[in-house]
């Protein structure tokens, strides 16, 4: 390289270009990560196929895929927005990625925007894949697509807030362990594959307030039973979103 190569010519790229580049990069990192793919793609797809094909859990009246598909969609949202995002962000924080980006031209809000977009891109891919599989298993969904969209967006907001709160306050290893544990517990106790009415009444009413239960129950109301807008579940998700995102904004530590 010759004289003048490094002559200063500083400047930030235009914001939309930075956000697009960051979104593409985050998505690429996520899709490359084997553990993340296991969590976000393989486990939901496998559970959908397995529990639809084999009658392990009594899913009530009708085809089991009609019960399972909405739950698995909720699980997909949780796996990406909560578990995946918490683990990835936790390690980015641990390895100084967030710190270094803090001196790059990319503003913090733009970084968070890119993270959100990356989560949404991943979710679109998940929803497409799981929908195709569900149709292959004979799924016949009902309901208002707008209500489904609203539930997915609010669910994403709620899980993102909780995931970022965890990633920004705990050590990376603790986040890894806790995010996986929470994933597993909510998978079992959140109405994803096991109907909540299998639990005792008292437990049921508590479990019903969890974000995963609100999302899976809301999606099921619409997609399986053709309900219009499940206001109760939307309300629970909104509360979690406000609490989670608020706490994350307040307590998140960048390094």
């Amino acid at each position: 390289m010759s004289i003048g190569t490094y002559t200063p010519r500083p400047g930030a790229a235009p914001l939309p270009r930075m956000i697009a580049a960051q979104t593409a990069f985050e998505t690429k990192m996520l899709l490359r990560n084997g553990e993340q793919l296991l969590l976000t793609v393989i486990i939901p797809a496998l559970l959908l196929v397995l529990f639809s094909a084999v009658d392990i859990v009594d899913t009530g009246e009708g085809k089991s895929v009609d019960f399972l598909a909405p739950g698995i969609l909720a699980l997909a949202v949780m796996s990406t927005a909560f578990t995946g995002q918490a683990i990835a962000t936790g390690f980015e924080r641990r390895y100084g990625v967030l710190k270094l980006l803090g001196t790059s031209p990319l503003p913090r809000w733009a970084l968070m925007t890119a993270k959100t977009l990356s989560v949404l891109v991943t979710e679109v891919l998940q929803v497409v894949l799981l929908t195709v599989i569900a149709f292959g298993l004979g799924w016949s969904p009902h309901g208002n697509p707008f209500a489904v969209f609203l539930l997915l967006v609010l669910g994403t907001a709620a899980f993102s807030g909780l995931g970022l709160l965890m990633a920004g306050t705990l050590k990376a290893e603790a986040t890894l362990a806790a995010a996986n544990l929470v994933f597993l517990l909510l998978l079992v106790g959140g109405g994803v594959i096991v109907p909540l009415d299998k639990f005792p009444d008292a437990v049921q009413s508590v479990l019903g307030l969890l974000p995963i239960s609100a999302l899976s129950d809301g999606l099921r109301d619409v997609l399986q039973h053709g309900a219009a807008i499940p206001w109760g579940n939307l309300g629970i998700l909104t509360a979690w979103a406000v609490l989670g995102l608020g706490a994350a904004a307040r307590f998140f530590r960048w390094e």
Partner: protein
Amino acid sequence: MRSETAQVAVQVCGLVKRYGSKTAVDGLDLEVRPGAVTAVLGPNGAGKTTTIETCEGYRRPDAGTVRVLGLDPVADAAELRPRIGVMLQSGGVYSGARADEMLRHVAKLHAHPLDVDALIERLGLGGCGRTTYRRLSGGQQQRLALAMAVVGRPELVFLDEPTAGLDPQARRSTWDLVRELRTDGVTVVLTTHFMDEAEQLADDVAIIDGGRVIARGSPEELCRGGAENTLRFTGRPGLDIASLLKALPVDTLAAELTPGTYRITGKVDPQLLATVTSWCAQHGVMPDGISVERHSLEDVFLELTGKDLRS
């Protein structure tokens, strides 16, 4: 407010930074000239990284002021960040990213980045291929971090221990890059433990200890000031030291260290050298292997910061 008009690239006045009850930086003053290479030296825990990270906008001063390119690193962060390049002591890269794609990504965040392929070639990162960051060698990780600091064509770069863990070849290649940056008008602030690095690269040196600057100047000024120099030669054993001392200035010391090896300590200048050689001539002594040892920056550093190990 562009930096062309700024007389100083970095101005730190009375900086204080505490972590709990521990005072990491305690009234530190530092000035960095634009276009120069400034080395910040100091023992572990002296406050080097805290000072640099305050300049980068990571920490708010508890007292004092910091101006970087005339801007407040915290309040004016949005304006400042595109103009500086930062190399952290470690990390800063997605563990699953390959060197070339990480560098390309950082380049995309800037308006007029360097040619990424040429930079990869220049820093010898071409051999990293498809290896992800966590599997790169320490040296490769260091060079990638350096590349990420300069790829946006900044006016000012902060390099925190840029050659820690590098082999001698990679170290020299990094030194060359720092020199090229300076030639092209980039201001460089670096911290280092290596005195030879500061001696080789720096126009200005600031030695920090206990959270303050305890000495500053060019490497030559620091080596000249204070410390005494040494002249050594070998000759016949048992020379008359007393007679030699009589010929030398009063505050000079002379000693026969082992039979036939002599050491003279004091202000070693051409006059003193001439005095010693003419004394030898008068006494029929051939001063073999006569050598003058300038005090190195390392001697100065150890003299100033003490030789005890720090925890």
